[in-house]
């Protein structure tokens, strides 16, 4: 019983780490660019499909290179979309315009993926690592979840160092505080925005690859993941990487535990958990 609980928790935490990574990308664009990027979910699925494509063409490719490939592809797409469209939309005073533009972009990307890759569910088969597992005290831990967790932690630590310790991070924080004054000080605002958008898309791609290894993805999966990312951001608080990680873990554990008892509920209990916390916060006045 205790062993089952620990195994479930372990799975929940690894999945939650991925949710945290997705949320961190969304929080990054919202915190810095002040844009709720509704095409974030599509970056997750595109990342997964790039990985599927890479593995199909080069079955021997090590998983690390698959991750690098997916990251690079989505970072490129995310950066280009920012430079070509979202940047223009941000010039409007109404913050809803860039959000609606990213929504339009999401619809386009999703259907482009359907047209090119088909609407079917795809799994990502990376060979040996998916089956390997460790036995500790009679409990079994998969190697893949462990890799996932390590990667999630690495993303969080890396992001935190990047933002707190580097010149780029300094510019990012300055822009987030006072974009106008940062521009006045000679910060290349648009360059920073494009880099941030690329980074967020790259993180989404990493998460997408790992999610595709756990379960299959279809072009329509992006919508669900976007909502999970959004819930992570709202629950964890903006600009708090630790909060995002904690919220991700909470939702991940809820999903794993609930699917154990109710296998065809999908994300129902995850969404309900989010909404319940929202109601509690609304009543206790900790929102708005």
């Amino acid at each position, binding site marked *: 019983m205790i062993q089952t609980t620990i195994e479930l928790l372990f799975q929940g935490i690894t999945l939650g780490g991925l949710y945290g990574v997705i949320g961190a990308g969304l929080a990054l664009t*919202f915190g810095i660019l002040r844009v*709720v990027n*509704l095409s974030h979910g599509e970056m997750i699925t595109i990342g997964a499909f790039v990985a599927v494509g890479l593995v199909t063409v080069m079955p021997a490719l090590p998983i690390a290179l698959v991750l690098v490939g997916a990251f690079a592809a989505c970072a490129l797409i995310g950066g280009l979309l920012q430079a070509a*469209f979202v940047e*223009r*939309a941000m010039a*409007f005073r*109404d*913050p*809803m*315009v860039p*959000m*609606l*533009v990213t*929504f*339009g*972009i*999401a*619809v*386009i990307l*999703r*259907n*482009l993926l*359907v*047209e090119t890759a088909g609407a079917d569910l795809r799994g990502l088969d990376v060979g040996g690592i998916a089956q390997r597992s460790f036995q500790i005290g009679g409990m079994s831990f998969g190697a893949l979840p462990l890799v996932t967790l390590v990667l999630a932690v690495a993303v969080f630590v890396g992001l935190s160092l990047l933002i707190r310790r580097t010149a780029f991070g300094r510019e990012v924080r300055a822009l987030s505080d006072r974009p106008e004054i940062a521009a006045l000080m000679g910060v290349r605002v648009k360059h920073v925005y494009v880099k941030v958008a690329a980074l967020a898309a790259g993180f989404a791609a990493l998460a997408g690859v790992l999610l595709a290894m756990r379960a299959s993805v279809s072009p329509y999966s992006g*919508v*669900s993941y976007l*909502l999970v990312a*959004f*819930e992570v951001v*709202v629950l964890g608080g903006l600009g708090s990487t630790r909060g995002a990680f904690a919220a991700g873990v909470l939702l991940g554990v809820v999903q794993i535990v609930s699917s154990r008892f*109710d296998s*065809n*509920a*999908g*994300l*129902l209990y995850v*969404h*309900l958990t*989010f*909404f319940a916390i*929202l*109601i509690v*916060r*609304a009543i206790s006045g900790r*929102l*708005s």
Partner: protein
Amino acid sequence: MDRHMNLILLAGGFAAALAGAFVFEPGMLFLLTEVMVVLILAQMWNLLAGFGGQVSLGQQAFFGLGGYLLFLGANSTQIPLWVWLGVTPLIVGLLAVPLGLVVFHLKNAYFAVGMWVVAEILAAVFMRFDFLGGSAGIVLRPGGASMTMNPERLVFFIAAFGFVAIIVALRLFLKSTTGLALLGMRDSPDAASACGVDVRRMHLMVFVIAAMGCAAGGSLYYITTLYISAADAFQMNWLIVMMFVSIIGGLGTLTGPIIGTLLFIMIREAMTSAGFSGGTYWIVMGALAVVVLLLAPRGLWPLIRDFHFRKTGRVTR
């Protein structure tokens, strides 16, 4: 002048809806009913976002709820289907009140996506529980028996006349004190609240009306299909349609969403008959929406109107 216009609209709409219901054959009526439903949905999203300043990405929740409550109510009771058609929007409106009180704690983009989560929850709930239809969905069997009549003529009449009535009601509303307060609130919430406008109550009122309108649209649409499933009723595409149509036509105008809807249906029918896939169609609509947002964020109708104004010196609404 304006009052006459409203009466002419109502009378004309009644006559046209009645004539249409008798003249067209069922296949055409089905398409036209869908047009009317999209018009109603677009006008509701427009009321919420364009006039009320609340962008919601979860209006498909009310659309699906409208369809489901009608089917569940009519199938499990002896109350006639057409009574349920009137009652369903009222029930959804009542449900929208407590929901609004919760989601209004989320602001702007958070509100928009929070509503989307609500729609996803409803979809999952209806999908999950068999007494709500489950993944198989529900067939419309009023009072437990199969439908004995073909509903499309009556449904088209109700939808068409209902749409005209909604337009007239919105025209009257926007001229009223409350309507003017709403416009003031959209342009400057702080100033409006300083002038004594109860912003929260106004938001809630618009939210509830939009919920009722979307529910009515869902009820009407699914009577014509006679079958409802959660995957269809709560799908994103309903939201995408009402949103794109409003944005492309012109948010915050009554004419804009109508133009957007006509464009939407025309492009879809043209592309379908030319053999393009559904995916390609959505790519085109998405691109159109993005281009309009970036180049003419007020939408197409204000462009046409301004052009007309410059040529004739007259203002058209």
